[in-house]
């Protein structure tokens, strides 16, 4: 049943907006569940469920301290996720920067046509 989490699994896990919010909160430092419940306004069961998903793919770690369980971001595990989609995103950024220039040309031309028409 248990299988190794892949980068893709981890990316899906962090793509969920609420889980991103939790990761953002954990990015500031270790926190117990109660903190996360308060800050997100979600119920404890939901927060626990999100934390479980994040732990399963390895982007969040937990440790026991006394009676508390403290959660923290595993930055190491986040890097490949971040990088994985980054190059794809960069391709589209490059394309769209060029598309910006195409649009500027089109706008100039339309402007020119309007002037000619007068």
């Amino acid at each position, binding site marked *: 049943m248990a299988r190794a989490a892949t980068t893709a699994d981890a990316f899906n896990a962090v793509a969920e907006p609420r889980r991103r919010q939790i990761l953002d909160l954990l990015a500031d430092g270790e926190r117990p569940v109660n903190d996360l419940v308060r800050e997100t306004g979600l119920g404890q069961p939901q927060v626990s469920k999100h934390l479980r998903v994040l732990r399963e793919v390895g982007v969040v770690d937990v440790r026991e301290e006394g009676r508390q369980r403290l959660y923290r971001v595993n930055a190491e595990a986040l890097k490949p996720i971040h*990088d994985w989609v980054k*190059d794809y995103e960069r391709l*589209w950024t490059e*394309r769209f920067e060029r598309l910006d220039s*195409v*649009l500027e040309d089109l706008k100039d031309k339309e402007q020119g046509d309007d002037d000619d028409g007068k």
Partner: protein
Amino acid sequence: MTMMASSGKATVTLPAPNQILITREFDAPKDLVYRAWTEPELVRQWWCGERGEMTLCEIDLRVGGMWRYVMIASSGGFEVAFHGEYKEIVENERIVSTEAYEGLPEGMDPDEEASLNTATLTEVDGRTTLTTLVEHRTQEGRDMHINSGMEGGMNEAMDRLERVAISLA
């Protein structure tokens, strides 16, 4: 290294295991973005980004019509080709088409693994937001799609810089 362009980066998210969502705003009305997206002589000017030269751009813009884009990658000189079929066309608003990557591993049928792409244009105050939803049948197909955009070795220095501050925002 270049500074961030004023119009900003493309935003890529993965809303579901089989999906990719690409979003970007342009400082132009939607009829112009539509032209830049659908006229071959204009597509040729942007589709390769910084990664090569486009050697073929065929667009038969009607439902059931085919499109095919081919580029030569500047790193390695290999050919990269995609094709698909138009499923739905609403001028200046929306285009639904399939997208097949012709460079899939041996034994895989590009058309069977094709994604369904929905490009939507919305204009507010003369600015247009383009969102493209890429839907694959499977997560594996989606992941291969993202990997097909990878160019080994490119921008590694930038990656390293970005790692310093991992932002999920």
